[in-house]
C-alpha cells in the first residue's frame, strides 16, 4: 500500500512538473521573441509611407524612417524632400513629443491635410493617419512592423 501511495504522489508531482515544464517552454519562447524584437532597429519613433505621388518624387511605396523632428518640403535642405509643384519650400514639420506625433504646418501656400482635414497650426496625429502635402499622400506607421 505504501508503494502505491508513493507512485500516486510521483504521478501527482509529475503532473505539476509537466505544467511547469510547459510554462518554462512558453516563457523561453516569449524571451526569444522579445530578444528578436529588441535586436531590430526599432529606435525610430515611426515611419512615413508614401501612398500616392503624382509628380513621382518621392515615389509611391517609399518608406522614410522618422527622427524626432522631421522637416518636409520642396527645398533640398528638408529631411524629406517632396518635389511636388503644390508643395512649399518649407512646408511642414513632424515632431514626436511625449507619446504622440504632431504635424505643424509652416504657413505653406496650399496647406497640409490630416485625414482630409486642413491643419491649422499644430495638429496631433496618430499611427495610421494619412497626411497630404501638395499632391503627395503619406501614412504614418509604427517603425517596428516586421
Amino acid at each position, binding site marked *: 500500500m505504501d508503494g502505491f501511495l508513493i507512485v500516486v504522489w510521483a504521478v501527482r508531482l509529475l503532473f505539476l512538473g509537466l505544467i511547469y515544464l510547459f*510554462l518554462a517552454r512558453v516563457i523561453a519562447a516569449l524571451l526569444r521573441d522579445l530578444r528578436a524584437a529588441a535586436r531590430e532597429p526599432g529606435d525610430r519613433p515611426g515611419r512615413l509611407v508614401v501612398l500616392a505621388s503624382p509628380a513621382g518624387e518621392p515615389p509611391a511605396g517609399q518608406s522614410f524612417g522618422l527622427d524626432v523632428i522631421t522637416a518636409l518640403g520642396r527645398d533640398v535642405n528638408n529631411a524629406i524632400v517632396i518635389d511636388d509643384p503644390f508643395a512649399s519650400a518649407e512646408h511642414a514639420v513632424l515632431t514626436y513629443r511625449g507619446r*504622440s506625433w504632431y504635424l505643424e504646418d509652416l504657413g505653406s501656400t496650399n496647406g497640409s491635410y490630416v485625414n482630409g482635414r486642413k491643419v491649422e497650426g499644430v495638429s*496631433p496625429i496618430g499611427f*495610421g493617419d494619412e497626411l497630404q502635402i501638395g499632391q503627395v499622400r503619406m501614412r504614418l506607421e*509604427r517603425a517596428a512592423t516586421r
Partner: protein
Amino acid sequence: MTAPAAAPSRTPALPRLIGPIRPRPRWVELRLLLLVAAALAVGSISLNATVNGEFRLYDVQGIVIYVAGLLVAHLAQVLAGRRTDQILLPTAGMLGGISLLLMERLPQDLVTQSFFGTTLTLAEVQLLWLLIALGIATTIGIVVRSDSWLRRYKYTWAAAGVALLLLTFVFGTEVNGQRLTLDLGPISGQPSELLKVILVVFLAGYLSENRALLVEQDTRVGPLRLPPLPYLAPMVVMWAIALGIVVVQRDLGAALLFFGVFLAMLYVATGRFSLVIIGLILFVLGSALMATLFATIRTRVDIWLDPFSDPLGAGYQVVQALHAFARGGLLGVGLGAGLPEIGGRPPIPAVHTDFPLAALGEELGLLGVVAILGLFLVVVERGMRIGAAAADDFRSLLAVGLALVIGIQAFTIAAGNLKVLPLTGVTLPFISYGGSSLLANAVIIGLLLALSDKGVEPPPPPRVGSSRRWFRRGAAR
C-alpha cells in the same frame, strides 16, 4: 538627419483575398501542444489512481477527443499558412484541458443537459463547448484577414451591445438574485460575456479615432490636467452604464470588468494617469452609493470583510473556499482527492462556475494555482506584444484590450475566490463551466490570432469619424 530607410521598399500591395494555399509549419506550437497532451495524460492518470486506484487514463474518450481537437486546430492553421502567433493556442489549450480534468472530477450530475434525445452530464457538456470554442477560435484565426468590419461599424457594434444589454434587462431571468441569463427558446446564455468583446471593439475604435485629441491638454482642475471636457463625456456614459448594470442586474462582476477594461484602455491610449485617478474616484463613489442603496451588494461587502460572522449562511461559500485553499497547502492533495463530498454534493455549490480556482487550489495546491495564474499572464503578455507590433492604433488597442479582458476577468474572480476582493459572479476564463464564457473567450483568442499575423493587409485609410466632427463643432463655438 533623416535618411530614406532602406531604398524603395515594398509597395503597399492590393489586399489578396484568396491566395494559393501554402502550408507553413508551426513547430513551436506543435511542440507545446505535445507537452499539453503529455501533461493532460499524466493528470488523467493521477485522477484515476486517486479515484479508482488504477494507473490508466481516467476518461480515455474525453482526453483523446480533446487532444485530437487541439491537433486538428493546429493542422488547420498549418494548412492555412498564416504567420500567426504560436503560443496562444497551446496556452489556452492547457487551461481548457485543466478545466476538462476538473469537470471530469466533479460530481457529474451538477449539470445535465439534453441534446437531441441524448443526455449529457457536466464533463461531456464542457467537452462539447471546449470543442466548439476551439473551432471558433481557429476559424476566426484563419479566416479573418481584414479588420474593417470591426473598425467601420463600431457604432453599430455598440448599438448591438446596448440592445443585448437592454434585452437582458427586460427579458432576463434571475438566478441567485442576479439577472444575467437570457433565455431565448432553446438557447440560453449570459450576454455580458459577449458584451465584453463588443465593448473592447467599440473602445478601440473610439479611442484610436480620438486618441490624438485626448492627448492634448486643455483643461486644468487644480493639480490635475484634463483633456478637453467634451471628451470626458464617454467616461461618464461608461460609468453610468456600469452603474446601470449593477442596479438592474445586480451583476457586480460585469460592472467591475467593464469599468476596469475601460480605464485600462483609456490609460493605454492616452498615457495619462490623471484619467485613471478620476476613474477610480468615480468608481469608489459609485461603489459607496451602490452599497448604501442595495442590500445584496452590502451583503457581498459584509461577507468579504468577515465571512466567519455567518459561516453557515451568507458566508458559506467563501468560508468553504478558504478551507479548500488551506487544505491544499503547497502541493495540493492530488487530483480527485479534494473536496470530500457532503451528502453527495461538493461543499461549494457553485464550484464549477464561480469557484474552480478553489477546487484547483485544494487539489493542485499553491504551486498549481501559481502555474494557472502564470498561464493567464502568458495570454496577457501575448496580447501586449501583438498590440506593440500592430501597424496602427486601432489594432494595437484592440489586441491590448482583448488580452486585458481575459487578464482582468481572471484577476477579478481569482481575487474573489481568495477573499482579496468581494466575490463577484464572473467566470474564470477557459476553466469555468459554461458555454457563453468559453465561446466569448474563444472569439477573443481567435481575434488575437488574426491580429498577430505579420504581413496581413495594411490598415484601411482612416476616415474622420462622426464623433470627431461633432466635438470639433462644439469646441469651435
